[in-house]
């Protein structure tokens, strides 16, 4: 944990509320706010060594070696020269330390660079340049276009009308679309008048520093009046000012207190199963070591009694050895030192190197590079690679993950007429394809060239001047919170909060109702070439409860109109009774849209009586100023006016699937990976998409739908589903049931249960809330896990995480969550592996993920190629690693029986020192970085190869197999033969005359290498040992697939077969359309700019020198 966090937390507790005054440093220093220096680095020159060493010695193996070192310093038990432990320990510690130091150095450089940026600050009535780190709370700072915001500050004024300020928040949340902030009127009047600004002495009282990016509450007291501040007035550190020449801000939070810094707390550290297993193994190894030492100590005691006592002529007992028991006790520790090689000191370092290497492979993979966005895949954590080869459950978001989240205006129903289908001359409906002729929008200069529409009748209706059609498009061009930008005359660029809204406004624009610009009080629309300005009276914005939005405008003809669009279920209930028949027709059309998987909205309007509106408006503005329960009150007031609506029609928007989704899901299915879709969308939409991308198949035996509203029904639904899938699982005799009735207290694992067919399950968020409670939890899990695919709809972010946790807790298998939006962050963090798709919805998901890439279908490659390799490599590495340590150490155990258990080593001390570190490390590393058992084409072609990883077959407590490199690259050759050669070089060097004569007590084996290597016996024994070691392994490998064939062996057989007789390339399955039984009404929307736009109304309508269009 970095230091500043703990500091700020401490201070936070003592700071219930922040209080500051502009331009008054003396007053503000009373509170001891930190200055604007940030420190993300962990160490400095002085504390690096102690702090880093302390951290490193928290690792079990490192701590063990430290203890060992101390043991070795005791002469009575020292059985090995001190350097045998010190050298490896030093090497391991210094590799890690250097890595940490480099990381920290980078952070230092970044910090310095950021802290030394300059910014204009108001001092003594003049703007002066100063460094970022010298900025203090209460300073007034000027930020210019394209500059980063220095600290969290209250926006005072800007160059733009109404003090609007455009910002980009890419550094904060990764979203690249512009956002708008707006100052309150009393400060925006100061504009860039330095006199006024220096005289400004407003006092701000606000909440203490916290990490909530979208929340801020405070009060500005200025000239005796109180003004409410919220997050719309706050410029956060990390944002960049765009399209705004300058703005002034009052610094509120500095340095570590800024929301940016408060947010970069450490993320929870994820550990893999292998990590855990490794720790368990190290513990077992300790136990094993202890028992070996004990046996040898006992042996020594016996030996001393029987032989050693009488051998004292030649070797008298040391004076401190009074009996053989004392000697045996000392010997226990001596062997504890000698057998240390069984504890793998370089294990952690090697594992880190391997994981790092395998992560780089992911970053380097050209096949996971997405050219349109110029983004390669990114392994953001380097610790989870092998887990990628063990995934059993994939939890996927829908929008933006399976779908592109690109919305296309496909169809609409206006006043009972359906538009959007294309018919040929014979009146037959035709599928839209590349060749279909597009509608010509050339009559409209403002049309978006990228927009395409195929049904000519709609354009004809527009040209004809059909009133209803005009009103429909007018409402689409007015009722939204899109911002427009017009850099070049006639080229409009829309900034929309949701892609649905963008699609609708763009459609209206093309049909001749182009939304051109807005101010807080007006909306300018070019209606069939004629510019009209509507006065914006109110925006009743969208939220998830209301599921609709409305605008109230005064038309140029001085009529007050309300336009509303929203989910059909909601809008239907608000319609005037006179539209009932039209409503029925429209509903039919909506059903048609839903069958095609289109997302739908209903559009309606209402003409308001001026007096009624005035009365309502008064009520509305009162409510808007209330402090308590504001949202609820606004919602109630809104309902008063959103009724008796006249239906205009409905829109249908296509949500396009991403490329390769279908194939990926089929492959994952074959790899026995279960796919659960967790989405916030409606059930119908979710199910529709599930069919479209083959999560649900038409051949499935049954799809169960759980939509109960209370415990009892949900329980019934789950049980009956299970009764169909596996009737015996309801019997008391079922092993799982009998196990559960014992009520084990320990966390337990629910075994895999095999149903009698292919089933799917759909559950909605409301039922899920009940199902996730205590006693239904297991019922849900067992039912859901029997199904091949599960869809949970209407999920809140928290519920997504809960579902992941549930599976994680009881299934004890590796889970993976993939998503792209902020609502997926919780599940991405909860799952073993979190994957962020850097897509349309911004990058919050990506920033919290372990791996990030642009397209869902890269998942296939990530799991089946990279994951599988990483897992196989890691398993081979660990097996080999433990194997070599055991072989090495057990020789000492064996030798003890011949050397009177006297802790004499067989090997030269230098061999012991270098064995792990120099002689054997590179071949193992080479193996674990370059080995490929089958190449990527085959692992993608045969997803069955993925299965062993899911059951963790290759490395478990039973498995200690020997090295088998199946993929000999040049580097492997170099490492293996190089290491052998190196061994002989070192041997000759260590046993050379020079060294032995210089340090006779350290290098004792003068000339041994020369003489021994001359003996034929040595070489003959060497050959024999190699034969004896290799043959059994080869024989076992030969017989294993014959006697105990597992599916993988069969697949490998087939692969070898195919290598010689190449298969024709696989036929690409054609994306089929969902069959027509399902319906979907969908709505994807986020809270818009509404409040911000209307807040301009509180300002005095003073003359502005320019409009928004000036740029």
């Amino acid at each position: 944990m970095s230091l500043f966090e703990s500091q700020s937390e401490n201070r936070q507790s003592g700071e219930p509320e922040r209080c500051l005054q502009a331009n008054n440093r003396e007053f503000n220093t009373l509170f001891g706010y930190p200055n604007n220096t940030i420190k993300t680095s962990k160490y400095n020159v002085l504390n690096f060594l102690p702090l880093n060493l302390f951290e490193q010695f928290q690792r079990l193996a490192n701590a063990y070696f430290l203890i060992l070192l101390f043991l070795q310093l005791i002469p009575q038990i020292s059985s090995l020269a001190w350097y045998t432990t010190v050298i490896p320990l030093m090497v391991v510690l210094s590799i890690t330390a250097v890595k940490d130091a480099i990381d920290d150095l980078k952070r230092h450089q970044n910090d310095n660079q950021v802290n030394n940026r300059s910014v204009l600050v108001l001092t003594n009535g003049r703007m002066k340049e100063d460094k970022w780190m010298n900025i203090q709370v209460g300073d007034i700072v000027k930020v210019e276009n394209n500059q980063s915001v220095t600290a969290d500050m209250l926006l005072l004024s800007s160059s733009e009308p109404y003090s609007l300020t455009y910002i980009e928040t890419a550094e904060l949340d990764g979203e690249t679309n512009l956002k708008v902030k707006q100052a309150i009127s009393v400060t925006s009047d100061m504009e860039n008048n330095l006199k006024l600004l220096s005289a400004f002495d407003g006092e701000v009282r606000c909440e203490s520093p916290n990490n909530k990016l979208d929340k801020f509450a405070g009060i500005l007291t200025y000239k005796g009046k109180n003004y409410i501040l919220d997050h719309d007035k706050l410029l956060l550190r990390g944002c960049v000012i765009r399209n705004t020449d300058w703005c002034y801000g009052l610094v509120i939070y500095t340095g570590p207190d800024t929301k940016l810094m408060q947010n970069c707390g450490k993320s929870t550290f994820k550990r893999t199963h292998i990590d855990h297993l490794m720790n368990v193994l190290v513990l077992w190894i300790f136990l094993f070591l202890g028992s070996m030492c004990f046996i040898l100590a006992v042996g020594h005691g016996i030996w001393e009694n029987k032989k050693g006592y009488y051998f004292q002529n030649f070797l008298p007992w040391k004076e401190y050895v009074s009996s053989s028991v004392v000697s045996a006790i000392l010997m226990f520790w001596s062997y504890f030192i000698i057998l240390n090689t069984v504890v793998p000191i370089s294990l952690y370092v090697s594992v880190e190197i391997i994981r790092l290497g395998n992560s780089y492979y992911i970053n380097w993979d050209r096949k996971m590079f997405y050219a349109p966005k110029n983004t390669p895949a990114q392994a953001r954590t380097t610790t989870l690679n092998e887990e990628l080869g063990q995934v059993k459950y994939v939890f996927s978001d829908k929008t933006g993950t399976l779908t592109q989240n690109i919305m296309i205006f496909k169809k609409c129903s206006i006043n009972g007429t359906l538009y959007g289908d294309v018919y040929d001359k014979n009146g037959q409906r035709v599928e839209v394809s590349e060749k279909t002729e597009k509608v010509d929008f050339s009559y409209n200069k403002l049309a978006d060239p990228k927009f395409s529409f195929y049904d000519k009748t709609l354009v004809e209706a527009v040209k004809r001047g059909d009133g209803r059609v005009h009103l429909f498009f007018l409402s689409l061009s007015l009722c939204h919170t899109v911002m427009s930008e017009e850099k070049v005359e006639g080229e409009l660029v829309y900034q929309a909060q949701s892609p649905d809204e963008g699609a609708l406004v763009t459609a209206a624009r093309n049909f001749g109702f182009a939304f051109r610009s807005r101010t807080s009080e007006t909306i300018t629309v070019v209606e069939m070439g004629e510019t009209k300005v509507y006065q914006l009276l109110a925006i009743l914005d969208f939220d998830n409860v209301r599921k609709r939005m409305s605008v109230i405008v005064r038309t140029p003809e001085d009529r007050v109109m309300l336009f509303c669009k929203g989910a059909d279920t909601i809008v239907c209930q608000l319609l005037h009774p006179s539209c009932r028949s039209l409503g029925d027709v429209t509903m039919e059309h909506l059903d048609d849209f839903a069958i095609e998987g289109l997302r739908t909205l209903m559009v309606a309007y209402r003409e308001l009586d001026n007096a009624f509106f005035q009365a309502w408006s008064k009520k509305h503005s009162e409510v808007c100023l209330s402090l308590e329960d504001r949202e609820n009150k606004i919602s109630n007031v809104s309902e008063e006016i959103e009724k008796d609506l006249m239906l205009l029609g409905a829109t249908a928007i296509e949500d396009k699937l991403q490329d390769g989704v279908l194939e990926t899901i089929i492959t994952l299915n074959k790899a026995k990976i279960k796919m659960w879709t967790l989405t916030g969308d409606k059930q119908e939409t979710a199910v529709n998409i599930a069919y479209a991308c083959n999560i649900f198949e038409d051949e499935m035996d049954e799809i169960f739908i759980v939509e109960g509203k209370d415990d009892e029904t949900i329980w019934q639904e789950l049980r009956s589903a299970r009764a169909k899938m596996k009737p015996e699982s309801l019997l008391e005799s079922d092993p799982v049931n009998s196990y559960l009735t014992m009520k084990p207290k320990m966390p337990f694992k629910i075994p895999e249960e095999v149903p009698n067919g292919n089933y799917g399950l759909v559950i909605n968020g409301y039922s899920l809330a009940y199902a996730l409670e205590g006693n239904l939890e297991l019922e849900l899990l067992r039912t859901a896990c029997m199904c091949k695919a599960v869809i949970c709809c209407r999920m809140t972010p928290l519920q997504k995480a809960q579902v992941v946790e549930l599976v994680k807790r009881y299934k004890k298998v590796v889970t993976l969550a993939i998503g792209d939006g902020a609502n997926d962050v919780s599940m991405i963090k909860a799952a073993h592996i979190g994957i962020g798709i850097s897509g349309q919805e911004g990058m919050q998901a990506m920033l919290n993920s372990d791996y990030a890439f642009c397209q869902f279908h890269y998942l296939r490659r990530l799991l089946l190629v990279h994951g599988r390799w990483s897992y196989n490599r890691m398993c081979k590495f660990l097996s080999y690693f433990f194997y070599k340590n055991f072989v090495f150490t057990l020789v000492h155990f064996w030798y003890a029986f011949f050397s009177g258990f006297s802790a004499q080593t067989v090997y030269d001390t230098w061999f012991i020192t270098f064995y792990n570190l120099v002689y054997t490390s590179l071949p193992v590393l080479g193996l674990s970085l370059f080995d490929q058992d089958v190449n990527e084409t085959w692992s993608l072609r045969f997803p069955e190869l993925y299965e062993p990883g899911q059951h963790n077959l290759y490395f478990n407590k039973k498995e200690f197999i020997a090295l088998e490199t199946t993929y000999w690259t040049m580097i492997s050759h170099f490492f293996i033969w190089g290491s052998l050669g190196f061994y002989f070089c070192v041997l000759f060097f260590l046993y050379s005359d020079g060294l032995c004569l210089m340090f006779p007590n350290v290098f004792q084996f003068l000339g041994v290498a020369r003489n021994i290597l001359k003996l034929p016996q040595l070489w003959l024994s060497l050959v024999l040992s190699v034969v004896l070691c290799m043959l059994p392994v080869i024989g076992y490998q030969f017989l294993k697939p014959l006697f105990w064939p597992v599916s993988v062996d069969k697949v490998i057989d087939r692969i070898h077969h195919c290598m010689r007789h190449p298969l024709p390339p696989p036929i690409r399955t054609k994306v089929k359309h969902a069959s027509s039984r399902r319906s979907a009404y969908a709505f994807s929307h986020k809270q818009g700019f509404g409040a911000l736009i209307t807040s301009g109304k509180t300002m005095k309508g003073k003359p502005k020198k320019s409009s928004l269009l000036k740029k």
Partner: protein
Amino acid sequence: MKRTPQDCPSRLPENTAVKQQQLPACRLQLSATGILSGFFATGVFCLGMGVILILSAKSSMEIEINYTKICASCAKLRENARNFDKECTCSIPFHLTQTMRGNVYMYYKLYGFYQNLHGYLLSRSNSQLLGTDVKDVETCAPFSKSHDGTPIAPCGAIANSLFNGTTKPPSWPKPVYELDENDPGNNGFLNDDFIVWMRTAAFPTFKKLYRRLSRTQHFIEGLPAGNYSFNVSYNFPVTRFQGEKSVVLSTLTWSGGHSLFLGLAYTVTGAMTWLAAFSMMAVHLKLKGKRFSPDDKVKL
């Protein structure tokens, strides 16, 4: 502002063999026939090697005369430390039935003498032996200094226990410079017997070279058959720790001495490999019809 991809240089990863994991490699894949023939070949090699080694070992001659029991009375005498100055010799007669041709080496062989004890091995001073610092006896405990405090040369437990008819440092009868009275150049730390003894044995049963047959006169051919006897002046007590002593006469060949171990190990390995190869072939022929197409390969 949305940034267009053209604004920044492409981040497409480099297309190198290492980064794309496309390094050219030979994949270790052996066909069933490959493995089986490999097994057979290895078997042939091992069997052949074994036969050669056994024959070679057989061609050397070795006789061992254990004199632990013959000299039991001397051993009894030596067990009592007070008798250190009493001489005790015993004669060990033996009959050589066959001439030992070529160079004949005489070894002394000790059973149950632990030259490989950790404490024993440490008790020596390499700098003293090298002559760099004769007074450096720190590492030699408990045989570092005599009662009057003068450093012992050579010091330490190994040197102290020099296997010899006679002994000095505490148990040496002669100082180090008088080890060989016949050859003045073979004395001090450079004495052959001393050097051989100081090269400690790895196992409690070991033999060390003592003398070579001087091939002159009758002995030009080697050691002719006939009756011989060793006269041992018994100085080295081993009976207290159940040790045994013997004298070994042996000739050498290219593959070492008379030991059959390596030859037998090769032969057994070869035989086992053949056995394994045959059974694997049987299994393969029996089961392959079920799972393999005739020339299918097996992953290794």
